[in-house]
C-alpha cells in the first residue's frame, strides 16, 4: 500500500461512530494532521472531499471539520512540499461524526506524489504517543487515555506504572527510574501543582480518575522549557481538552475482593453524614475551634467550677466519644463515571466543552496486618534480630473519591483559548484493632490498641491557557495561568491502648491521643513560551524562549491532645474513655483530662512560601542532515521564606529568607537519525533538587503514630561535648548532572525497541539522617556525593512474527536496572560502625534511599477490533528498595518485591459499539505488600505486612 518507504504512515486513534441526538441532514468528518518528521500538527493543510469538491483547511491544532451528506468518500490532503495523501473509504453517516485516524504527512523533496490509503479503521492505542515519542526533543514516555481503557486502570496511579521506568509506591506516589520522591516532579497541564502530602514532593496519583485525563507524559531528560527541579523525570498529567467528537458516556464499575468485601469482620467507625462524599461534615471538628488560648488542667484543678474550669469542661465534653471501631459487614467497591463533551462549530469560531464526573467508593480490609519493630541485640556476636514492638491486627479502610472536571475551549482563527476547572475530593477513613506486644528496652507489656483515622484531601485547580500563532505560523505563543488550592486535613486521628491483662491506661503503654493536622496550600503557576520557526543552515529550526513564575504558600499546623486518665478504671472498651462520668469534673478531679501539646509553643506549625522565577532559551536545529540538536539554557531564581519557631520558642523566624539562589541549567540533547526509523539520542543536562518547606526550618514535628520526630534541617548537631560538628545546619540544594544515551527503533503499527543508559551525579544529596544522640529523631542533611547508573530496555512486539494467527497479540516489556551509591553522613557512618556485628564490614557508602534496583513491566496484550475484544495479562515488579535507613540497633528496612499480575479483558457490544464491558482480576498471585528489616547474617523480619488479596473488577460503559 505504501508507494515508498519514506512515506511511512501511521493511522491512529479511535474513531467511534456516535449518534448525535440532534437531527442533522449531514454527517461530519473530523481529523488531525501531523507532520511525520516532528510529530507536530500541521497548520494550513488543505483537505478536499473529492466527490463533492467541498473542503477545509486545518486550524492551529492541525484539525479540520467538513460537513457532507451521508456516503462514502475519498479525502485528499495536500500541503506545499509534502506528499499528498488520499484516504479512501471514508464512511459518513447521517447525523454522525466520523473521526479520522491521525494522519502523518511527510515532506517530499524529489517529486510530488500521492499516497493512497484506505480508511480501514486501525484503532491502535499508543501509536500517536509513539510518534510524539519518536520525534520529541527530549526523552519521553507516556500513556494515553485509550490505554487506560485497555488496561482497565481506574486511576492515574495504577495506569502510569505501565510506563517504562515508572513505579508507584504505596499505590500513590510515582517514582521515575526508581529515583525517590525527592527526584520526581509532578505537574498538571505543564505547570506546578501543590502536593497533597506535606512530606512529599510529588502528588498522590491515585486521586486523578482516568476519565479526566487525556494523557500522562513522563519526560526523563531535561529541556530548558521544563522546571529545573527534576532529576528522575517530570510527570505531566494533561487533562482533557477539545473533544474530537460528541462524547456522552456513563460508566459503572465494581470490584469484589473475596478476602475484603462482604466480610462481617470488616472494621469501621461512626463518621459524619457526608463521609460517602469524601469530606467530613464537622463531626470530626476540633472542639476548641483551633484556639490556642484554652485553659489547661493546671488552671482547672484548683477551681473546677470557675470560669476556666467551666470552659475546660466544655471543651473536654466536646471531644467525640468514639475511640474504637466496630466490626460489621462491608460492601464491594463501586465506581460511577460520567463524561460529556462536544465540539460546536460556528462560523469563525469553534467551541469545545468537556464535563467529567467520577465517583468511587472502595473498601479495603486487611486481616492480620503487621507493623513491627525489630532491633539488633547489643552483643556483637549475636546476629538474629530481636522483636522490640509487634503490632498485629485487622484494619478497614474506606476510600471515597469524588472528582469533577469542566472545561471549555475556543478556537478562532489562529488563536485558541482554554478554561478548565477541576475539583478533586478524597476522604479516607481507617479503623484498626490491634494486639500490641512491647519488648523494647525499659518496657515489657502486651496491650490492645485501637486506631481511628480520617484524612480528607481536596484540590481545586483552574487552568486558563492560550495558544496563538502569528505571522502565518512563524511565531507561536503559548501561555498558561493556573491557580490551585489544595487542602489536606487529618481531623481527629484517635489512638488508645489498654495494657493487658488489667486494661490499664498509662504512660508506659501510651496515653490516649487525638491529633488534628491541617495543611493548606495556594499555588499560582504561570508560564509563557514563544516559538519562532526559522531556517538555520537552510534547515527547519526552532528557537523557543519564555519565562515562568510560580508562587506557593503553605500553612501547616498540628494540634495534638493527650488524655491522662488519672484514677479512672476501664474494662477495655475504648468507647468508654470519654464517657461523661469519666471526665474530670468537680468530685472527679483525677479523671480523664486533656493536655494540649501545642501550647504555648508549637514547633509543629509553620507557614512558608516560595517565589520561583524562570527564564529560558532553547534552539532546536539540525547541524547535520541526520542530526538534530536541542541546546538550551534555563535560569531560575528561587526564594523560600519560612515562618515558625523551634520547640522552646528561642528561635523565631518570621517570613525570613531561608533560601535565595539563582542557578543556570544548561541542556544539550542530540538526536541522530541512524535510519528513518532509528534514533540515537544523547543528552547532558544540569538539574536541581531543593529542600522542601519543612526541611529548611527549625520545625520539630513529632509523628505520634511512629514516635519519630522530624527535626528541621537548620539545627546543628555536635558530639563529644560540642567538639565535633556532625551537621552544621547549612542545608543546600543538590545540583545534579544527568547523562542519557538511548538507541531506539520504531517499526510499523506501534512496534518499537529501545535501549537506554543513564548516569547521574549528585552533589551532596539530601538524605534523612538520624540524630546520633537521639535515634528517634531524623533530620534532612546534605550527605556525601552520590551517583546513579542505570539501564533501560523496552520493546513492543507483535506476536504475528511467530505465527500470523497471533497477529492480534503483542508483547510489551520494559525493564529498568539501576545501581546507586551515596557517601554516608558522618553520623550515620559512626552509628553503623558502633553497631556493627562481629565480622561485619561497614563501608562509608550505601545505596540511595528510595532507589529501586530494578523495575520490570511486561505483558501480553490482545486486540481484535473486528470482534470488539481487547485486553491483556500484565506483570509488574520493583526490586527490593531501601525504605528507612537504619540507626543504632535498628537496621535498614527494604520493600519486598511485590509480584503484581493482573488480567483485563474488554468487549464492545452492539452495532455502534455503544456498550463496553470489562472484566479484570487484580493481584492474581495473591502477593503481600511487605517491608522487612535486614541485618548482617540475620533472618529478615517483618516491618509491615499487608495482604491486599485478589480482586475481581468489572465495568460497563454506555455511550449515547
Amino acid at each position, binding site marked *: 500500500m505504501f508507494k515508498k518507504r519514506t512515506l511511512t504512515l501511521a493511522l491512529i486513534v479511535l474513531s467511534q461512530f456516535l449518534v448525535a441526538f440532534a437531527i442533522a441532514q449531514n454527517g461530519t468528518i473530523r481529523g488531525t494532521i501531523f507532520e511525520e518528521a516532528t510529530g507536530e500538527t500541521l497548520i494550513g493543510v488543505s483537505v478536499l472531499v473529492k466527490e463533492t469538491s467541498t473542503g477545509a483547511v486545518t486550524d492551529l491544532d492541525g484539525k479540520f471539520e467538513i460537513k457532507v451528506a451521508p456516503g462514502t468518500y475519498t479525502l485528499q490532503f495536500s500541503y506545499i512540499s509534502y506528499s499528498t495523501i488520499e484516504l479512501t473509504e471514508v464512511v459518513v453517516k447521517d447525523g454522525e461524526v466520523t473521526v479520522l485516524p491521525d494522519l502523518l504527512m511527510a515532506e517530499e523533496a524529489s517529486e510530488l506524489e500521492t499516497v493512497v490509503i484506505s480508511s480501514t479503521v486501525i484503532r491502535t492505542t499508543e501509536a500517536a504517543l509513539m510518534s510524539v515519542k519518536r520525534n520529541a526533543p527530549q526523552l519521553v514516555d507516556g500513556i494515553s487515555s485509550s490505554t487506560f481503557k485497555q488496561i482497565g486502570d481506574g486511576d492515574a496511579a495504577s495506569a502510569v506504572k505501565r510506563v517504562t521506568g515508572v513505579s508507584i509506591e504505596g499505590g500513590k506516589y510515582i517514582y521515575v527510574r526508581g529515583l525517590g520522591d525527592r527526584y520526581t516532579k509532578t505537574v498538571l497541564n505543564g505547570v506546578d501543582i501543590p502536593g497533597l502530602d506535606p512530606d512529599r514532593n510529588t502528588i498522590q496519583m491515585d486521586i486523578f480518575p482516568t476519565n479526566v485525563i487525556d494523557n500522562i507524559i513522563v519526560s526523563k531528560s531535561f529541556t530548558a522549557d521544563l522546571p529545573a527541579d527534576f532529576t528522575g523525570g517530570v510527570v505531566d498529567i494533561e487533562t482533557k481538552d477539545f473533544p474530537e467528537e460528541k462524547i456522552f458516556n456513563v460508566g459503572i464499575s465494581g470490584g469484589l475482593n473475596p478476602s475484603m468485601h462482604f466480610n462481617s469482620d470488616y472494621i469501621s467507625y461512626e463518621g459524619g453524614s457526608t463521609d460517602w462524599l469524601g469530606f467530613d461534615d464537622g463531626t470530626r471538628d476540633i472542639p476548641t475551634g483551633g484556639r490556642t488560648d484554652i485553659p489547661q488542667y*493546671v488552671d482547672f*484543678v484548683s477551681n473546677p467550677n470557675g470560669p476556666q474550669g467551666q470552659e475546660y469542661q466544655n471543651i473536654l465534653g466536646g471531644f467525640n466519644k468514639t475511640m474504637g471501631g466496630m466490626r460489621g459487614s462491608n460492601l464491594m467497591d463501586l465506581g460511577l463515571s460520567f463524561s460529556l463533551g462536544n465540539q460546536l462549530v460556528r462560523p469563525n469560531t469553534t467551541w469545545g466543552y468537556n464535563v467529567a464526573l467520577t465517583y468511587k467508593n472502595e473498601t479495603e480490609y486487611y486481616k492480620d496486618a503487621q507493623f513491627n519493630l525489630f532491633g539488633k541485640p547489643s552483643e556483637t556476636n549475636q546476629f538474629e534480630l530481636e522483636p522490640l514492638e509487634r503490632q498485629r491486627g485487622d484494619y478497614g479502610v474506606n476510600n471515597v473519591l469524588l472528582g469533577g472536571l469542566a472545561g471549555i475551549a475556543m478556537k478562532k482563527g489562529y488563536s485558541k483559548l482554554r478554561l478548565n476547572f477541576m475539583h478533586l475530593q478524597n476522604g479516607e477513613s481507617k479503623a484498626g484493632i490491634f494486639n500490641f506486644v512491647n519488648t523494647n528496652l525499659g518496657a515489657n507489656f502486651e496491650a490492645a490498641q485501637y486506631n481511628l483515622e480520617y484524612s480528607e484531601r481536596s484540590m481545586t485547580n483552574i487552568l486558563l491557557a492560550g495558544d496563538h500563532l502569528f505571522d502565518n505560523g512563524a511565531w507561536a505563543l503559548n501561555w498558561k495561568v493556573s491557580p490551585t488550592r489544595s487542602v489536606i486535613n487529618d481531623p481527629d486521628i484517635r489512638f488508645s491502648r489498654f495494657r493487658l491483662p488489667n486494661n490499664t491506661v498509662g504512660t508506659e503503654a501510651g496515653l490516649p491521643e487525638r491529633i488534628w493536622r491541617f495543611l493548606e496550600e495556594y499555588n499560582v503557576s504561570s508560564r509563557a513560551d514563544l516559538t519562532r520557526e526559522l531556517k538555520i543552515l537552510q534547515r527547519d529550526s526552532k528557537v523557543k524562549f519564555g519565562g515562568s513564575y510560580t508562587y506557593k504558600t503553605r500553612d501547616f499546623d498540628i494540634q495534638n491532645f*493527650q488524655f491522662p486518665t488519672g484514677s479512672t478504671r476501664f474494662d477495655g472498651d475504648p468507647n468508654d474513655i470519654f464517657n461523661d462520668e469519666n471526665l474530670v469534673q468537680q468530685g472527679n478531679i*483525677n479523671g480523664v483530662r486533656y493536655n494540649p501539646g501545642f501550647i504555648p509553643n508549637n514547633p509543629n506549625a509553620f507557614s512558608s512560601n516560595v517565589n520561583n522565577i524562570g527564564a529560558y532559551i532553547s534552539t532546536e536545529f539540525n547541524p547535520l542532515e541526520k542530526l538534530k540538536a536541542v541546546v538550551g539554557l534555563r535560569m531560575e531564581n528561587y526564594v523560600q521564606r519560612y515562618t515558625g519557631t523551634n520547640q522552646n520558642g528561642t528561635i523565631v523566624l518570621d517570613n525570613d529568607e531561608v533560601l535565595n539562589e539563582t542557578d543556570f541549567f544548561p541542556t544539550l540533547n542530540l538526536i541522530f537519525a541512524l535510519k528513518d526509523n532509528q534514533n540515537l539520542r544523547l543528552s547532558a543536562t544540569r538539574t536541581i533538587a531543593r529542600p522542601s518547606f519543612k526541611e529548611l526550618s527549625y520545625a520539630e514535628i513529632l509523628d505520634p503514630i511512629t514516635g519519630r520526630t522530624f527535626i528541621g534541617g537548620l539545627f546543628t548537631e555536635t558530639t563529644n561535648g560540642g567538639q565535633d560538628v556532625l551537621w552544621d545546619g547549612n542545608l543546600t540544594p543538590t545540583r545534579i548532572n544527568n547523562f542519557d544515551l538511548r538507541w531506539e527503533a520504531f517499526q510499523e503499527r506501534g512496534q518499537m525497541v529501545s535501549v537506554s543508559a543513564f548516569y547521574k551525579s549528585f552533589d551532596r544529596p539530601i538524605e534523612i539522617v538520624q540524630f546520633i544522640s537521639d535515634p528517634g529523631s531524623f533530620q534532612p542533611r546534605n550527605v556525601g556525593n552520590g551517583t546513579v547508573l542505570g539501564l533501560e530496555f523496552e520493546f513492543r512486539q507483535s506476536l504475528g512474527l511467530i505465527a500470523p494467527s497471533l497477529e492480534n497479540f503483542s508483547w510489551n516489556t520494559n525493564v529498568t536496572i539501576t545501581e546507586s551509591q551515596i557517601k554516608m553522613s558522618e553520623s550515620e557512618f559512626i552509628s553503623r560502625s558502633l553497631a556493627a556485628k562481629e565480622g561485619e564490614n561497614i563501608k562509608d557508602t550505601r545505596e540511595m534511599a528510595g532507589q529501586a534496583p530494578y523495575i520490570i513491566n511486561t505483558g501480553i496484550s490482545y486486540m481484535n477490533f473486528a470482534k470488539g475484544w481487547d485486553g491483556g495479562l500484565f506483570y509488574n515488579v520493583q526490586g527490593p528498595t531501601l525504605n528507612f535507613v537504619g540507626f543504632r540497633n535498628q537496621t535498614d528496612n527494604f520493600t519486598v518485591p511485590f509480584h503484581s499480575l493482573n488480567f483485563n479483558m474488554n468487549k464492545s457490544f452492539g452495532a455502534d459499539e455503544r456498550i463496553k464491558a470489562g472484566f479484570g482480576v487484580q493481584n492474581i498471585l495473591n502477593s503481600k505488600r511487605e517491608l522487612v528489616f535486614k541485618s548482617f547474617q540475620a533472618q529478615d523480619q517483618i516491618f509491615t505486612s499487608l495482604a491486599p488479596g485478589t480482586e475481581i473488577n468489572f465495568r460497563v460503559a454506555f455511550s449515547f
Partner: protein
Amino acid sequence: MKKLLYHTFIFAALAIGFTSCNDDEDPDNGVTITGIPPTASIEAGGTLGPVTATATAPDGLAQLVITKDGATLATVPLTGTTASTPFEYTALPEDAGKNVVFTFTVTDVDGDQAVATHVLTVGAEETVISVSSNITSDVTWETGKVYILQGRISVEAGATLTIQPGVIVKGSAGSGANASALVVARDATINAVGEANNPIIFTSFADQIQPGQIVSPNLTPDINGLWGGVLILGNATCSLGGDVTETQIEGIPPSDTNGLYGGNDDDDNSGMFKYVSIRHGGANIGEGNEINGLTLGGVGRGTEIEFVEVVGNQDDGIEWFGGTVNVTNAVVWNAGDDALDTDQAWAGTLTNFVVVAGSETDHALEIDGPEGSYLAGHTLRNGSVKGDGANTELGDFRDGARGSFDGIYFFNFPSPNELDDDMEKIGRGDFSLSGDESNENFANGDLMFALLETTLPTSVATTLAEVFKNGTDVHASDVATPLSGADVSVFAGWSWTSEAGELSDF
C-alpha cells in the same frame, strides 16, 4: 542575702546659665524648683528616674538639699541662676511596701528657699519570681520565695543554681515538649540543700502551697502530670546502644543540647540535692518519652543526693540512666508508672528507700540491664516497698539486669493467683526475671539477691515461689515482721509521705 541592691543615686550638678550681677541693688528675688513629680510608683528594688530637678534663683543659687523620710540624703552645691540636677533612686530592701517621702529644698544666696516634695510608692517585695530563660550565670533562689518555671529551664554548663531551704519551685502549665522542667545540664551545678524541717519543694503552678508548708492545701497526692520534673545530667559513663558515649535524655527534643548526658568522668560532680520533694510532675511527650520525677542521667559519684521524695508523678518516680551517683534516703509515693527505674548500667548504690505504690503504679522496681557493651550493675540496699493491694508488681529484672539487691521488704501486694472475670490468673504482684540474659546473670552471680522478705497475701493461697519467680525465692522469705527494710524515721519532718501518715505501717 548579699546581692541586694545598694542604693545608688547619681547626681551631677550642671551649673548653667551664669548671669552676672550688676551693682544695681535689685529687690530680693525668690527661688523656684521644678521637674520633680509629686508622686511615682516603683516595684520593690526598682529604680526611680532619673528625673531632673531644675532650680532657678535670679539672685544666685546656693545649694540643693535632698531628704528621704526627713533624713538628709544629699547636699548639692549650686551656682549660677539656673541649674539642673538629675536624680535617680533605687529602692532599698527596707523600702519595700512603703511610701518614701523625698523633699528637695533649694536655697539661694540670700537664704530664700523653695521645697518640692515627692512621694515614692515602693511595691511590696516580690516573693513570686518568674523564671523564663535559661540560667547561664550563677543564681541563688532565696528562702521564703516562690519561683515559677515558665517552661523548660536549663542550668547551662558553667553556671551554678543555688536553691536555699524552703524555696518552692512551681512548674507552669504545659504538656508534652512544652512541659516546664528544671534541667541541670552537664557541667552545670545545682546546690539545692534544704533542711530536715524546711525542704525545698518542686510542684505545679496549680499547687497553692506556701513557703513553710509541706502538705499541699489543695492538691491530692495522686494528681500527676501537671508539669515536667527535675533532670540532673552529668558526664559519667553510661552503657548506651551502639556504644555511643553520650545521648539525649528522654523528654527533651534533640535540638536542645542541654539534654545531652553521658561521658567518661565517673567522679563528675553535679552538685548537691538534699531534702527535696518533687510533686505532681511527669508530663508525657510520647510513648517511652516522658519526664520522670527525678531523672538522673549519667550523674557522677561526686554528686551528693540524699533525702529526696517524689509524689504523684505521671511516669516513673526516680529513674537512673547510667552514671555512678549514690542516693540515700529516697521515698517515692504514687508513681504513675514505675517507682524506681534503672537503665544503661547505673553503677551506684541506693540506700534506705521507701516505695508507697498508688493505684496507677506499675513496678515498684524496674531494673534494666546495660544497652551497650559496657557492663556494670548497681546496688539497692535496705528498702521497704508497699504495694497498692491490687495492681502493682514487686519488681522486674530485664534485659540482662545486673547488680545486688539486699534487704528489701515487700508488703500489701496482690497475689499473682488472683483471678479475673474470665477465671484466668491476673498475674500481678510478682518479682520476676525477664529474658535469658537476666536469668543467666542470676545464674552466674552478676545479678544477686539477699534477704528479700515479704508478707504473703492471704486472699488467695500463694506460695513464695509464685511471688518470687525464676528461682529468686531461694533468697526470699515470708515473714510477719521483717528483719530488713528501710529506716523510715529519716523521712519525718520534711516529706509529704511521712506527714500524710503513709509511713505509719512501715
